[in-house]
């Protein structure tokens, strides 16, 4: 069997048809490997703070001491073009300036550049996070009081004039 001239679609068909998890096509110098990506990642995935970028909180992703693999929630496809506002530091996420106050923003709200979005509290210091873009808040990812890690997505904003 030679890999030359054999198109991938053909191989993909075989994969599906025969329910293969791996298909290797070899010809002298070259090797083509087709794998069905299983749910198990190459390394047993454990939920990490921050790998889950769709808004998982620390509370929800704290893992058992020797817990098993957990699937990661998929990012909805339509979010692809939205602007992501990420946590610039580790801390606790607050949607409002005080427990009794209204949230800074809700999903669907229109925001302008430098509008306040939330507070991330770290070591008793309240860090206000402002919007870097103009648009509509499509998603507020962490829950109120969730812990967020560096780089975790806090908001998804559809940019609009």
């Amino acid at each position: 069997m030679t890999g030359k001239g054999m198109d991938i679609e053909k191989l993909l068909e075989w994969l599906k048809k025969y329910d293969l998890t791996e298909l290797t096509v070899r010809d002298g110098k070259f090797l083509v490997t087709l794998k069905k990506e299983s749910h198990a990642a190459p390394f047993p995935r454990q939920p990490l703070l921050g790998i889950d970028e769709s808004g998982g909180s620390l509370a929800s992703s704290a893992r058992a001491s020797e817990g098993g693999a957990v699937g990661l929630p998929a990012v909805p496809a339509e979010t692809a073009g939205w602007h992501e506002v990420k946590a610039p530091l580790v801390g606790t996420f607050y949607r409002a300036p005080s427990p009794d106050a209204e949230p800074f923003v809700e999903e669907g709200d229109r925001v302008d550049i430098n509008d306040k979005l939330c507070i991330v509290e770290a070591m008793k210091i309240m860090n206000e996070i402002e919007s870097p873009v103009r648009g509509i808040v499509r998603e507020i990812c962490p829950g109120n009081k969730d812990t967020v890690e560096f780089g975790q997505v806090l908001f998804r904003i559809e940019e609009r004039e």
Partner: protein
Amino acid sequence: MIRKLLIANRGEIAVRIIRAARELGIQTVAVFSEADREALFVRYADQAVCIGPPPPSESYLFYQNILAAAKSTGADAIHPGYGFLSENAFFAEACRAVHIIFVGPSPQAIRKMGDKATAKRLMKEAGVPTVPGSEGVLESAAAARRLADEIGYPVVIKATAGGGGRGMRIVHGKKELEGAFNAAVGEARQAFGDAGVYLEKFIENPKHIEIQVLGDKHGQAVHLFERDCSIQRRYQKLLEEAPSPVLDDDTRAAMGRIAVAAARSVSYDSVGTIEFIYDMRTQRYYFIEMNTRIQVEHPVTEMITGVDLVKRQIQVADGERLSLTQEGIARTGHAIECRINAEDARQDFLPQTGTLSQYIVPGGPGVRVDAGVYPGYAIPPFYDSMIAKLIVWGETRKDAIARMRRALGEFIVEGVATTIPFHQRIIQHPEFHQGTYTTDFIRRVMAADGGENAC
């Protein structure tokens, strides 16, 4: 009781600490930079928090995010490993301020031992031998000569503002002294704008021997014998062993007693290391500095004593009394550690990055591997190049060397160049077999063998 420990470090030492914590039934939190998301320690920890971008200053040294991660995850203790924040007294205090146990000595002990001049003075007061020399700046060539006569030649004259060998003069005899003094003063003034020089006894090609100590918060302190760390390249240790092949039992015991006295003098309450230089000609030794943290080479001590130093470190940080007595600490056999770095010895030890396309670790009797990597792992370019430590134990030093040779041969790493071939050369060298090597071994012997880079 520590219930959840945050590890403010990365790589093999983070894995090592997770192992100790897990065996103690303590939950673990890893903190990691964006470059370390796929690292072994992140996978092995119970929880993991990203604390910043790859540069250490913005992640592993950025204590604000580390403390925030500890508070957020409910960690009640932080282990700093080695390097990074491990000898930062301010960080130790910051932990204390937010009611988190710092797994290390008191901030006071870190501070005292962190300043070389203070440390040397304290050690002198505690009766620890230090390198003889002037107390401060030498005023004249005559004063230099009087001191040199007193402590004996060779001596070295160094600029107080100096560093890196500039303004440094080694003086072998009385006749050279005045000229050397004047030259050093002139060079110091020119190079640093400060004519101040001091004088010390010059120890030529010493051994680097360090004593492991362990103290608790209740005034107890013990030592766990010595490590010989004289195999160094540009002040980087490459290979360590315990016991030292050149110490006799009386010297070993004396150095141990002195190290314990040194630790007690600063109420030392954690694992630490008292470093000495050892003059093989005179069999005298001199305090150099104290490292107030767990060290890279701690496993060789664990191998000959059976004591788990990292577990003990966590326990004493938690306020437990040391259950070890000096008499109860015995040593058996011999241990050697080789640091396996992703470096190409043929390219002046240039650090390597790349993916470990094959990675087979040695095993079998008397072999221990402490690694931070796994097969298929991509080594990021931002950090230390050490990927693993290979430690062996043997009934005798000869057995340990044979075992290390065997284990190095089994260690297969593909995808990046490593120091494995370089270690194979070291352990086959007759001078290494004799055990009489000193800190100039790598430079001198490897050069004579056809260049440090040839292997």
